[in-house]
Structures are given as C-alpha cells and as structure tokens.
C-alpha cells in the first residue's frame, strides 16, 4: 500500500534527522569550545556574556548573521556563487550517512564505507573552488587556487594511509574496520600513519597551520571574502561539520571507534556511542590545540610537506605493512 511507502520514507527521514540535527548542534558547541580553548591558551576569558558561561554565543552569532542582508556582488556568477556554500554544507553532512556511532547505529552500513567517506571528503574542494571563481574577485580566486592544489596533494597521502589500514582489516566496511581493532587499536601498531593522517586531516579541512585558502594576513578572508549573512553561515557550518567528520574518520580508522580502551568490567558497560563521542572530542581538542600553538605554513613548505615527505613515507609504509603481513602470514582471510 501507499501506507508502506510512507512508513519507509518517514523512517529514512527520521534516520537522516537523527544524524544531521546532533551534528549541527555539536557544530555550534564546537565553535564555542574552540573560542573558549583558544581564550584559555591566550590567557583571555573568551565568550562569557550570552547564557551561562557564554554557552549560547554561537546561537546568537548564527541568528545575527542570518538576519543580515545577503549581498551578491554584481560582477559575480550568481548561480555558481549561491550554489557553492550549499554544496560545501551538503557534502559535509553527506559523509555522516556511513559513520557507525555504535554497533548497528549507522544510517547506511555499505560495503565501501571508507571509500564513500574518502570520495565525499575529496568533493569538498568544489565548494571552495566554485566560491573563489564565482566571486570574480582576486583574493577569493587566489584562495580557491591554493585550496585546489592543497586538497589534491593531501588526498594522496590520506589514500595511502587508508590503504595501510585496509590491509590490516581486509574490508572496506567501517563497522568491520572498528571490529578489527578489538585486540589493539590501529593507532598503536600504525602510529606514524596515525600522525600523518591527523596532519593530512588538518590540511584537508583547511585548518591551521594549513589554512592558506583563507589566509587572512595575505588574502583578506580567502575564498569567502565576498560572502555575507546566510551563505557565510553555510560555509562556516560546513567547515566545522567536515572537521567533526574528519575527526570521526580518524577515530574509526585508528582509535577503535565505539570500542572501550580495554575490554574490562567498568569500561565495557559504558555505551559505545559515549566512547565514540569522547574520542571524537579528544581529536577535536587536538585540532584546536594545534590552531592555538603553531604558526601558519608558507605555501611552498605546505606543498613540500605533502609531496616530498608524506607521500614517500606513506608509500613506504604501505609496502612495509603488506610485506610484514605477508611474511608473518597475518593477512586477514
């Protein structure tokens, strides 16, 4: 009956909302947390006016930005200009469809989960390029070009890191990747890969010290210089949502997803989703810590790090891992 279609449709919509709404709320609190942590690093107070401890600051900011006038530059390419922030936002939310928060807590448990995540995160560059080009202005354009080169460079090493993990798992399914870490989290045997992945994730999400696409000291605000009000909010949300997505990816690949650190009594009664959240918050804290600590890279240094350091090293590690697994006959199935 049509009734059945309705039920199926409603279930799918409910699943999507159950993932997207918490992500958006956590974006708001991540922005607050970032400002607070940076303030503590720099011996300031940070936001402390709106709500208790300033906790509602991000909501106030979002409300303020959305009620402002949306200015579209007259020389811009209007359709692409409006599409760019929407694409950024949609792509940063699309990846969540395959993230397993706990055993069975996943919207779509597909076979090629990790490939899907890799594909979605590599599409993220289009929002930025389109924004930079459609603005028809020098600074955004330079930001877009920098971003295109940067994201393609770091994707290569991310790909090799993922291959190393897949060699140890024998499956592209994210739940199986987590379950393969029951004996030991991959962060321990594959520690160098974990570090490379984390640094590449910083570059992939355009975070400091690799935020050259929006380098404010040379490019005003980079690719979103011309954006205002709601379209700016979409870019902002998209950037932070993809930050949380990359942190979840790190947790799933290297920190055992929903698994407790040790499978002993008081730890293993804690629900998996709480372990997952705690680990993601830890990685996000590292993101903010790095931002508060390191100076920005120069562009040629960024390219050198990607192509001349990370690429050969991760390639070597792929060969070394597969050699080790074959020699000791430890290849999965």
């Amino acid at each position, binding site marked *: 009956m049509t009734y059945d279609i309705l039920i*199926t449709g409603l279930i799918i919509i409910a699943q999507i909302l159950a993932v997207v709404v918490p992500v958006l709320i956590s974006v708001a609190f991540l922005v607050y947390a970032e400002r607070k942590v940076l303030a503590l690093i720099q011996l300031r107070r940070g936001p402390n006016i709106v709500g208790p401890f300033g906790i509602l600051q991000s909501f106030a900011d979002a409300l303020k930005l959305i009620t402002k006038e949306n200015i579209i530059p007259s020389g811009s390419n209007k359709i692409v200009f409006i599409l760019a922030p929407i694409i950024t936002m949609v792509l940063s939310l699309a990846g969540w469809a395959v993230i397993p928060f706990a055993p069975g807590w996943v919207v779509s*448990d*597909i076979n090629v989960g990790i*490939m899907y995540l890799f594909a979605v995160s590599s599409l993220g560059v289009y929002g930025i390029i*389109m924004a930079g080009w459609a603005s028809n202005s020098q600074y955004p354009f330079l930001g*877009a070009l920098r971003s295109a080169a940067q994201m393609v460079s770091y*994707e290569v090493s991310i790909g090799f890191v993922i291959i190393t993990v897949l060699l140890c798992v024998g499956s592209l399914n994210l739940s199986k990747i987590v379950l393969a870490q029951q004996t030991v989290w991959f962060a321990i045997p594959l520690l160098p890969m974990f570090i490379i992945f984390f640094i590449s994730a910083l570059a992939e999400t355009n975070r400091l010290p690799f935020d050259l696409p929006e380098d404010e000291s040379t490019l005003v605000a980079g690719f979103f210089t011309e954006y205002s009000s709601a379209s700016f909010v979409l870019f902002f949300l998209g950037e932070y949502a993809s930050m949380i997505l990359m942190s979840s990816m790190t947790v799933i690949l290297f920190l055992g997803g929903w698994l407790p650190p040790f499978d002993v009594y008081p730890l293993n009664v804690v629900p998996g989703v709480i372990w997952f959240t705690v680990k993601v918050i830890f990685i996000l804290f590292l993101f903010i810590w790095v931002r508060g600590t390191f100076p920005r890279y120069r562009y*040629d240094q960024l390219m050198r790090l990607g192509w001349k350091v990370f690429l050969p090293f991760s390639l070597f590690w792929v060969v070394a891992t597969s050699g080790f697994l074959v020699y000791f006959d430890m290849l999965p199935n």
Partner: protein
Amino acid sequence: MEIDGSKKLLKIFISIENIDRMVLYSLTFYLFSSVAVLSALMVISAKNPVHSVLFLILSFVNASGLFVLLGAEFLAMILVVVYVGAVAVLFLFVVMMLDINFVKLREGFLQYLPFGALLGIVLVIELGILFLTDRSSNIYNNQTPLQPIVNEVENTKMIGQILYTEYFYLFQICGIILLVAMIGSITLTLRDKGGVKRQNIDSQNTVDASTAIEKKKVKIGEGI
C-alpha cells in the same frame, strides 16, 4: 548489520509490495541516466568553459549513481574519487587559470564541424548496430530492466580476485603505460629556470653559532 548498499536498496523496494519495486528502481535509473545525458549535452553546449567542467562533474556523479544501481559500488566510488575528486579538480584548475577568448574559440566551429559530425555519425551507427543485432544476448533478452546483482562476495574482493590473477599482465601493462605518460609529462614540463631561490631545509636546520656568525675586525674609519 552487514547489509551492503544495493541489498538495502533492494530491501526497501521489497517492503513496498503494492507498487512494483522494479518501477521504483526504473524511476531511479531514469533519473540518474537522464540527468547524466542532459548534463553531458550541457558540457558541449555551455558558453562558459567553467560551466562545462561543472556539468561534466555532474555527469560523472550521475554515472556513479548508475553504477550503484547495478550493484557495482566499488566502481562507483572509484569513479567519484578518481575522476571527480582528482582529475576534474585539476581540469577545473586549468580552465579557470587560462584566459580564454570565447569569441575566438567559436570561430573555428564551422571548420571542425564536418569532421566532428562524421565522428558522431560513425558512433551512432555503431551503437545502432549493437542494439539491432545483439538482441539475443542476455542483457537485451531480459524483459526486466537491469537488476542489482546481489552476491555473497563483495565486489571489491571480486575485482581484486580477477584483476590480480587472470588479467595480471594487462594490469601491469596499464601500470607501465601510466608510468611512461607520467615520465613524459615530467620531462616536458621540467625546466631549470635560473634565479629561483630554493629553501634548503637541512642546511637551515644545521646552522649554529659557529657557522652563522663571523667575527671581523673593522678598522676605525673604514667599512667592511
């Protein structure tokens, strides 16, 4: 828990009993394929080359949707990662950087028209022959549209098992061709320009007081 994408899709379709699930399946197919064909048309008809590339990307994404419908999820993801995520980015990069004169680009249109039309006609005839003669083969004999092939083995594994055994030499040859192309493009573009300042990080890191500072006696009333 371990339901793959196409199986899950199929499961949704099975749960909808009264509407023929194949109807819904065909609708999805026609959505993807029509958008793919339309955006492919826009690639060659769009005035602005950047718009052309963006439509090309849309076309790629829809083609990968078609692969998912076929149950070839690995191919679908590879298509997005390689073509959309890497090749098209560089393509867009180049098209954006080039200062193209659109009016000049259109001038040669009539000159190339006969040649292009010839190629197109040959392609259409070939496709027509394929459709007319090969009715007896499995694909066209089926009255139902193509269905997702649901296997016990993941198709990533299946591709690996075939690619590294039966087609091993072909695979190696592909690799060598890519290597040759890569070396060729590097030799074509690598030039030693004079006057470029390069940073030598090792030499910078090994600097200490004894190598960085030089003491000189300066005579009174004279410079160095």
